[in-house]
């Protein structure tokens, strides 16, 4: 090729900052340190904390939410958001409880939970990708819509009497203290980690979040990718609905109330840019552990729920403000 004439590759080191330095400065490491500190604080707060069964119980505080958080992370990286996830849980749980009245068994209930999740995701996805509506507006609407249907069906009643095999999905143990939910959490963390960081689909998600115009001009089917992400988020909400309903053993219309905020908190705390285009699954995993341990530790100390949410909110703002404060102080 003519361009090669007169030019020869020269060898200079092209990384002035090494790999080690990049890891040291990473968000994930900071978060991990915080997780360790909270873990230590918890062991001091309660002598029962380190008991394996106790730790196993602690995982219920984040497993269901974090399953949704993985899909939500991809959605937020692509520049969209789904605030209707808790509404989807309510609707999916109500649909399963309603089917239960007609004697549907566990496999049927699971299928219904997954199907409702997918349908709700599809509904959001079509409104966003086909009609071009902003996802934050669409899903604020569907958040009330989905839960509203649950309220209409249930009123102040509840669906009870789920079979034991169904309850196992929420409370069962696969091995010793390892719950079925924790196993799902690990499996989904691996799947979403590989999909986001190691496949071209994941690369397209980043590209869309960074620069939708460039993505389109690079031949990426932007609408299709976003549609898939809404479907995934819906599906994960359906799975969370199955686990949560199985664990609680009943369906009320207030099930998983305000979970969308905790899920988004988990994602943002995990280092995913709320503006899209950046973030990692590892960060979300550690953030899930942090939030899970904080809520559980505070629970051990008999701190009421409302104080807990204050604490989580403060933690979110604190962790996000910390790196900026540090750089500001350094510049002085």
């Amino acid at each position, binding site marked *: 090729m*003519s361009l*090669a004439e007169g030019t020869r590759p020269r060898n200079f080191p092209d990384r002035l900052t090494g790999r080690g330095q990049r890891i040291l400065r990473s968000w994930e490491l900071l978060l991990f340190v915080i997780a360790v500190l909270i873990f230590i604080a918890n062991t001091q707060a309660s002598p029962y904390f380190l008991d394996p069964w106790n730790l196993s119980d602690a995982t219920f505080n984040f497993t269901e939410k974090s399953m949704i958080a993985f899909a939500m992370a991809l959605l937020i990286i692509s520049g969209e958001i789904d605030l209707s996830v808790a509404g989807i849980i309510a609707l999916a749980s109500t649909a399963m409880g309603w089917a239960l009245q007609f004697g549907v068994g566990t496999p049927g209930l699971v299928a219904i939970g997954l199907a409702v999740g997918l349908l709700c995701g599809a509904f959001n996805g079509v409104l966003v990708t086909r009609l071009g509506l902003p996802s934050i507006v669409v899903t604020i609407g569907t958040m009330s819509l989905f839960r509203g249907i649950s309220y209409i069906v249930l009123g102040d009643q509840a669906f009870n009497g789920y079979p034991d095999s169904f309850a196992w999905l929420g409370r069962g143990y696969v091995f010793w203290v390892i719950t079925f939910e924790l196993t799902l959490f690990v499996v989904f963390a691996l799947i979403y980690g590989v999909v986001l960081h190691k*496949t071209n689909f994941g690369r397209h998600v980043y*590209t869309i979040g960074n620069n939708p115009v460039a993505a389109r001009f690079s031949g990426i089917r932007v609408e299709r990718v976003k549609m898939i992400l809404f479907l995934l988020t819906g599906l994960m909400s359906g799975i969370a609905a199955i686990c949560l309903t199985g664990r609680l053993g009943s369906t009320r219309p207030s099930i998983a109330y305000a979970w969308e905020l905790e899920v988004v908190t988990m994602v943002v705390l995990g280092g995913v840019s709320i503006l899209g*285009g950046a973030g990692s699954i590892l960060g979300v995993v550690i953030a899930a552990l942090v939030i899970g341990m904080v809520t559980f530790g505070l629970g051990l100390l008999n701190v009421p729920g409302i104080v807990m949410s204050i604490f989580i909110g403060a933690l979110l703002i604190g962790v996000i403000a910390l790196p900026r404060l540090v750089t500001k102080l350094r510049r002085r």
Partner: protein
Amino acid sequence: MMSTESTAIDRSGTPLVEMRNITKTFGGVRAVDDVSINLYPGEVVGLLGHNGAGKSTLIKILSGAYRADSGEILVDGQKADIGSPRDARNYNIETIYQTLALADNLDAASNLFLGRELTNRMGIVDDATMEAETRKIMSRLNPNFRKFAAPVKSLSGGQRQSVAISRAVYFNARILIMDEPTAALGVQETEMVSELIQELKKQGLGIFLIDHDIHQVMRMCDRASVMKNGELVGTVNVADVTEDDLLGMIILGKNPGKAA
């Protein structure tokens, strides 16, 4: 400076691209009105005109962002149906924007392979091979380029532009659309990009160059097509006209009578 080369373009054969009688209206406004332009291999054609003259709309029809209301596009003399940027790519038409082309948080290799990532049989992206390929092409295009692992938002304007251009070259583009490729660049980087364009010409690529800078167009282009109010004022050989002639075409819509 480049005018001696411009006479050497062979325009006897089939054009690389021909846009014939293209019309596009937006709600009653004729953005492009019956415009015909063409491009031969090894040629740089400048597209000039005020903001709103219709040059961007015209070029977006070629790159697949819009569909023309009427008229046709021919690539190598064959009628081409371009309904999306993806279709345009299949005809080896690549678009390079000054600011729009890159994903800021991804590194140079990911940007080079944007939308066309190399994967192994399991569907896992092959970052090592992509970086090696990026190093290979960069050693040809911009040997001073070192920041392969950094997100492209940390690169200078010229470095970013060389990533965008390397993408077109790597994937064997034959028709390149450049939208103000030097708008945000310093003197030295502008020089680098203009040298790159000369190299691409030698390899037989055809380039549509949209630019506001008449001086730049006189320097880099072989021909210039001028648009005003959605209509084509005319297409001239750059060597045959003065900067004042071009200005007259842009501002007054006056054809100097030296059509090419």
